[in-house]
Each structure stands twice: as structure tokens, then as C-alpha cells.
């Protein structure tokens, strides 16, 4: 496993690897999305309490999972930058931030749209909602920091440190519904006792979660290829300027 990541440290090898992987990921993402949406809309029954509004779950929950997955991935990349000095670690981290931000935004908006009919309000300052809002603001902060610092190496180290500090928010988000009195419902999928959702609603949710993850990985690899190309362009431009001088 470690050797696999070491071999991919070479950008050319990474590009060759993703040349083969990306088309398969696209097909998988599209296929899973269609199956998940079919399950969410035509197979899963309405909830006995929430009625048809439960359909929002099939995008809200995967979006929440991906927003946390994004920051987890960025945290691992940060370790790769600071400890292992892996050449692609900061590329991965920079590329993941906008994707995580998008999913976090979807989670917050769909959560508000789900909350209004269910709780009678779009927003409450409870532990779960507030901690996810903090995650969204941290995502924006990371993207702003990348843009603010010209030196890529310095930016990578500073963003890595910020990301690792921000990782404390992940267990807070996860356990907020257990630690505090929260309007948000407690965990119903990832629990020690097993999922509390009926299988007819669970399988579309898991398929949508998998589809979201495949989309995340697909976009991540695409954005990493873009970032590598941009860095090569900057290097070649600098070289041309030096030769011209």
C-alpha cells in the first residue's frame, strides 16, 4: 500500500494511472447515480412520519458524508505533505477543497429545506448544524489561503497545518447529536447497533452514498491532473523567462 503511493509520487506515472482509471470511474459514477436515484424515487417507500419529504435524505446524507470525507482526505494529504513530503500530497489537498466545499454547501442547503417542513425552521444553532457550518467556513478558509500565498510550498505547509487543526471538527460533527441536546436526529446508519433504517430505504441511501464517493474521487483525480498541468505551465513559463533574460 505504501509502495503504491510512493510509485504514484511521479507525476507522469500518476497521469498514466489515471488515464486508465478515469473512464471506469465515470461509468461507475453515472451507473450508481442512476440506480440510486431510481431507488430513492421509485423503490423506497415514503416515511411513516415524514412522508415524501424523506426523499431529501437521499442527497442530504450523502452530501454530509462527502463533506466529512473531503476533510478526512485533506487531513491525510496534510500528513503526506508535512511528514512524508509526498510530491502529490498538496496537489491532492488543493484539488479536494472545492469538491468538499460543494458537498458541504449542498448538505447545509438541503438540510435547511428538510428542516423547514419537519422542524418548522430553516436553521437552529444546535451542535450538529453549527459544527457543519464551521466545516463549510473552514473549507472556504483553506481555499482562500491557497489563493493568498504565492509561494506554493509555503501555502501547502500552512494549509496542511490549518487542515490538521480543523480535523478536530470531524468527531465533533459526528458525535454532536450524542454529546448535546440536538434538534438534528441521532445517527441512524453508522451506529454500533447497526443501521436503524429499514432496508427498503437503506439500500438507495448506500448506493447514493457510493455514487457521491465515486463522483468525489473522479473529480479529485481530474482536478489533480489539472493542477499538475498548471504547475508544469508555470515552470515552463519561468524557464522561458529565464532563458529570454
Amino acid at each position: 500500500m505504501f509502495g503504491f503511493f510512493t510509485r504514484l509520487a511521479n507525476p507522469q506515472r500518476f497521469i498514466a494511472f489515471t488515464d486508465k482509471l478515469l473512464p471506469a470511474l465515470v461509468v461507475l459514477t453515472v451507473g450508481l447515480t442512476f440506480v440510486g436515484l431510481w431507488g430513492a424515487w421509485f423503490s423506497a417507500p415514503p416515511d411513516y412520519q415524514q412522508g415524501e419529504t424523506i426523499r431529501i435524505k437521499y442527497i442530504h446524507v450523502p452530501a454530509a458524508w462527502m463533506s466529512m470525507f473531503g476533510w478526512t482526505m485533506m487531513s491525510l494529504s496534510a500528513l503526506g505533505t508535512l511528514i512524508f513530503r509526498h510530491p502529490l500530497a498538496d496537489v491532492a489537498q488543493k484539488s479536494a477543497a472545492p469538491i468538499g466545499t460543494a458537498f458541504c454547501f449542498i448538505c447545509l442547503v438541503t438540510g435547511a429545506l428538510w428542516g423547514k417542513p419537519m422542524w418548522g425552521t430553516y436553521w437552529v444553532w444546535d451542535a450538529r448544524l453549527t459544527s457543519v457550518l464551521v466545516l463549510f467556513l473552514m473549507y472556504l478558509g483553506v481555499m482562500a489561503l491557497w489563493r493568498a500565498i504565492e509561494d506554493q510550498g509555503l501555502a501547502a505547509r500552512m494549509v496542511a497545518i490549518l487542515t490538521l487543526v480543523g480535523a478536530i471538527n470531524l468527531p465533533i460533527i459526528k458525535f454532536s447529536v450524542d454529546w448535546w441536546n440536538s434538534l438534528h436526529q441521532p445517527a441512524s446508519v453508522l451506529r454500533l447497533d447497526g443501521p436503524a433504517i429499514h432496508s427498503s430505504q437503506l439500500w438507495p441511501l448506500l448506493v447514493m452514498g457510493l455514487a457521491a464517493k465515486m463522483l468525489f474521487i473522479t473529480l479529485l483525480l481530474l482536478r489533480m491532473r489539472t493542477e499538475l498541468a498548471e504547475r508544469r505551465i508555470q515552470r515552463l513559463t519561468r524557464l522561458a523567462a529565464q532563458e529570454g533574460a
Partner: protein
Amino acid sequence: MIPVFASLGPHAAYILISYAVAAVVLGALILSSLRAYRSARRRLSAMSSRDDADAA
């Protein structure tokens, strides 16, 4: 569209807007990612062609 809307109950608008927001945000993310990738490849290719022309 109208039959689908009618069968979703009294909170249909919230459901449909949620899916619309997700589609718009993810659609924009996918399109911007593809655009940035194609732009970078085009510029890199142009630089490589210029280098080859200079070398020749």
C-alpha cells in the same frame, strides 16, 4: 412534471428545490473542473508545440 409534483405531498417544493440545488451545484463543479482541465491541456500543448518549433 405536474403529476410528479402533485404526488409528492404538501412539501413537494422543498423536495424538488433540494434536488435542483444539488444538480446545479454539482453540475457547475463538474463543468468548471472539465473546463479548467481542457484549458490547462490546451495551454500545455501550445507551449510544447512552441518549444518544438523553436528547437527546429
